[in-house]
């Protein structure tokens, strides 16, 4: 398999909010992910907080973006960038920063913490709804509907879930068509934070496995029996024979780009490493799934198989490396 060097995948556009946003019908009472019953009486001031930025994107896509009063560090929607950030030290929630915004409902999940802060907020009398923190294609529709139910806009939820599902299958077919030429490339998702000494690879159940499947690749970490997120093992990496690395942009930057990546034990001894076969994408987007997923998938499909992709057709005759 010939590779044309590192590519940066960029989402061309953002998910469109539903065209006919409905006004929340409240109160709603839902049973959250922890089995607890939560009643929401007011959805004027919403906070949606998780490590992936998925929840805030979902609220935005449901047409309630103007009700968000703050955001987590991962929320990527351009029109939400000016909202105050309530996380610090990466993905740590700050109770005071959250209370200062006087939210009337908080949607969050266990991908972000500490748990104690979420409990504090609950004790402060704010309805805190804990959502499912799984991220893969199969749960996108349910998660959209769940968020819509909490916020009293079930119809918008159905509409959005349906349109997203449709768009996902379109994007899948496009990617499958593009991937035909490539013979099931072997891929692995690397989660690196060079400055913190964190070198992990993602396996089954991490979301990365499903992303790779959507891209028509073989998840070599999952193939090796790896579950969740595990510290990188040089020999294991070499043995798994990856052709392509998927990474978060900041993760790639933290090790010094594609060249710095070669310094990590094992990487230089893989085909993907030798060829510089790396596709990176914005940290907040690459694993966030949610309503933004079709866009994400197209961008990644393009970066991998597109005319200018790492494994793109005509790469043999081309020889030049556009940046």
């Amino acid at each position: 398999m010939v590779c044309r060097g590192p590519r940066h995948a960029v989402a061309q556009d953002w998910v469109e909010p539903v065209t006919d946003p409905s006004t929340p019908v409240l109160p709603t009472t839902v049973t959250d992910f922890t089995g607890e019953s939560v009643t929401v009486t007011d959805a004027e001031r919403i906070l949606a907080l998780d490590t992936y930025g998925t929840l805030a994107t979902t609220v935005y896509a449901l047409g309630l973006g103007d009700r968000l009063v703050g955001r987590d560090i991962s929320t990527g929607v351009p029109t939400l960038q000016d909202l105050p950030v309530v996380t610090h030290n990466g993905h740590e929630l700050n109770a005071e920063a959250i209370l200062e915004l006087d939210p009337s409902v908080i949607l969050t999940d266990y991908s972000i913490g500490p748990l104690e802060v979420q409990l504090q907020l609950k004790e402060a009398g704010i309805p805190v709804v804990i959502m499912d923190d799984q991220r893969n294609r199969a749960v996108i529709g349910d998660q959209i509907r769940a968020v819509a139910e909490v916020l009293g806009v079930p119809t918008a939820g159905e509409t959005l879930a349906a349109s997203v599902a449709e768009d996902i299958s379109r994007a899948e077919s496009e990617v499958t068509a593009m991937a035909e030429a490539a013979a099931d490339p072997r891929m692995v998702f690397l989660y690196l934070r060079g400055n913190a000494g964190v070198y992990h690879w993602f396996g089954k159940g991490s979301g990365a496995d499903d992303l790779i499947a959507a891209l028509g690749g073989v998840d070599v970490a999952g193939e090796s029996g790896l579950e969740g997120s595990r510290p990188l093992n040089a020999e294991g990496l070499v043995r798994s024979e990856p052709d392509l690395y998927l990474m978060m942009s900041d993760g790639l930057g933290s090790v010094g780009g594609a060249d710095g990546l070669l310094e990590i034990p094992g990487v230089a001894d893989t085909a993907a490493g030798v060829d510089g076969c790396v596709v990176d994408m914005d940290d907040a987007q690459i694993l966030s799934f949610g309503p933004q997923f079709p866009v994400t998938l197209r961008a990644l499909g393009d970066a991998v198989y597109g005319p200018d992709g790492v494994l793109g057709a005509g790469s043999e005759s081309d020889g030049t490396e556009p940046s």
Partner: protein
Amino acid sequence: MALLVALGVALVAAAIVAAAVGQLPIAPSEVLGSVLHRVGGWVGLDIGSVPSHPRGEAALWNVRSPRVLLAALVGAALGGAGAVLQAVFGNPLAEPSVIGVSGGAAVGACSVIVFGWSFLGSYTVPAIAFATALGTTLVIYAMARHGGRTEVVTLVLMGIAVNAVTAAVIAYLVFLGDSQAREQIVFWQLGSFNGSRWEAVRVVAPVVAVGLAGVMAITRQLDLLALGERSARHLGVNVERLRLTSIVIVSLLVASGVAFVGIIAFIGLIVPHLVRMVVGPSHRTLVPASVLGGALLVVIADVVARTAVDYADLPIGMLTALVGGPFFFWMLHRTRTAAGGWG
């Protein structure tokens, strides 16, 4: 006595200031008003007022009050534990985090997080942390002492060895854990009061109270230990029992703190040392003054931790180590100079 009163007043003042500062603005007068309002509410009086910010009352009572109280409790526990540990080792450099008691407690707490144990409810983490802290302390004690005293070199080397082992065990636990457990461990290894809840206060308060009451009952005997174990025994001290009691108490105090807020280093070193410089080594004043001083120092340190950098909560363990490390170094240097070597 004057010192105790001064420390007590300073602690109350620091607690009020700590309750007033934070990201969500509440004026000290509003804090006072809200406290009056609460207290008045209990006795049926409508006095005081709630803060003007719509979530001010919640921030004050659900976020900040438990945080300030927990900081005071943990500081008190660490100050007291340091003073007792130094008496038992006959060495002013003994400190829970230096010799590895904190690390031992951390191993227990991490195990609970990684293996998801919950058989004792909210007491699970402190109980297991206590068990491993106790085990660690007993090992250190059995190995570091010679003739009733512990030499500085032995103590420091012992601390290096124990901390290396506990760090290795924690690293292994981190490896075993899923990413959520991992983040919880990292968060908590640095030591932080972010996320302090009333539940933690309810668990820690009685444990610390029992521990400190126990310490106060043995202060006179702790004085006698300064004469060495044989002389203490000659004066009627049941040294074995005193040792065991002290170690159980120290483990209890350290574990209750470590379980909820992680490792906060050097409090047990700095505070008793400063107190000794002011009022001398008698444990009848040293222990209560170290308890109050520890509470005061940690409350202040936590205020600094959450206000030094805008919108960020600095890990308080990092902060105290930053100050305590050089202090420890200075004490080590002084001890060495005074003893003319590493005695």
